[in-house]
């Protein structure tokens, strides 16, 4: 699995990417929406984008709309990862085409829960049938 982490904070990119790597993802990073679009346009193929909302140049909501409008990226799962946590903002992001929404601050468990529900994490191990 490959993920693109889009956030203007290096700190946050490092935290999100670090958690994704623990879950087995290969990660890429972009500093804002336009940066991320350029990477995708250049042929980077990813399964998941984790997207901050407030960023310079192009914000996360605009990025989501742009990706959703392009059939090339139909299979990419989009998850907002942002401090924006008003109910209306979450509804807006889902309406724009985001699949999931993770509110900062979040714990590593919370990120894993969301990805598990989206079917993007491999199970760590299975239960053995008792003999």
């Amino acid at each position: 699995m490959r993920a693109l982490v889009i956030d203007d904070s290096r700190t946050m990119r490092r935290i999100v990417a670090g958690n994704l790597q623990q879950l087995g993802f290969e990660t890429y990073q972009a500093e804002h929406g336009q940066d991320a679009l350029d990477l995708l346009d250049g042929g980077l193929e990813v399964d998941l984008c984790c997207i901050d909302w407030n960023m310079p140049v192009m914000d996360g909501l605009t990025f989501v709309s742009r990706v959703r409008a392009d059939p090339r990226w139909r299979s990419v799962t989009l998850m907002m990862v942002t401090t924006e946590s008003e109910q209306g903002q979450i509804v807006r992001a889902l309406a724009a085409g985001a699949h999931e929404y993770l509110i900062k601050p979040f714990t590593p468990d919370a990120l894993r829960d969301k990805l598990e529900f989206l079917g993007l994490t491999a199970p760590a191990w299975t239960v053995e049938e008792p003999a």
Partner: protein
Amino acid sequence: MALSQESFAWVADLVRRRSAIQLAGGKEYLVESRLLPLARDLTGGDVDAYVQRVRGGGHDGEHGRIVEALTTNETSWFRDSSPFTSLRTHVLPQLLSTRGSVAHLKVWSAACSTGQEPYSLAMTLTDALPPGASFEILATDLSEQVLTRARSGRYSQLEINRGLPAPLMVRHLTRVGAEWQISDGLRRTITFRAHNLLDPPPAGARFDIVFLRNVLIYFDAATKKAILDRVRRVLAPDGALVLGAAETTIGIDDSWQRVPVGTGSVYTPSRAGAAGGAPFGAPAGGPAGGPAGGPLAGGLPSPRVAPAATPAAALAGGPPGAASLAARAPLGRAVAAAGTAGSLLPRPRPAAAQPLVPGQSRPATTPRPVPAAASGAARGARPLPNASDRNPPGRSPFDRTTYDRPTPAATPVPPTRGAQR
């Protein structure tokens, strides 16, 4: 006075014996900050003196308070997700198929803790039941304290982040200040009641579905068998029991039949399965959680069932404008993929509570410590600690005073944040 190694070791041993949670060395500060509210009552805030006093005897009631301050059950929404998928794709279709129709469904969520499981069940049933069918959930727990929280339906932001799909969240919860509130409609479907699993089961009901997850692990084999026996007596013959991912009836109580469903299992009373095959046999249509609309065994009467159970479609009927979300948000794909990829495997929590800070990893056990004071404050369940005796009388530590500061002449730290990006 700082916590001595001896006191820390005693607390760690107490917690390990009572909860199986290991408090590794290096957690002294954590123990100290969590026991501080307890120490304030007994020894004026000296945690080490508090521990010594409790060790000295005569304060056995404090043992429970100490363990509670350092532990709580980890609860997330749709925990392990597979049981909820199984409910939608197998348990309900089978009940509908064997009974012809289901007008009213009774569900028991046993050991419901702070309520995430019964509310997740209510969300699932709201979407998965055919039109006209209703349901009620009895949610029980030993602890009145967690029941009060569960009943209130009020959750902190961090709790909400744990496994609750965003479309269901904006549909069933409303933001209230720093917290989120479950809708009255959903709350009305659940009755919360104190119940000890070692006592006779709740009277007067025959349940169609029982969720009893991640609680048998705490009991010995004989007690497990006794609990399973009591559950079987209140379960309909064609009903289903759902256990935690690491739990099974096999080798404990042979009056149950394990039925593999997708990547997990449900259990059904064996005698019911004797005639006409297992009531919860594998469906004709493929693995659990397969593509929505696939040929479910005994097919549900309404096309609403499978698709509506996906988070996107679940938005229909939500807040204003939500109906359009259902059409536009491409969630169905992701959820269907989840099912077909078989990656919703039920499993005990992996030892994956990756800490953000090295050296702070938690044990791989499921319960996870939460401090009473902090979690209480985060939920608004109790007021912030009042002024300690070190503060002037009647003054909360948060009373605003002029903050003793030099002239505010902020000078930027190079490089400025904007410039570096």
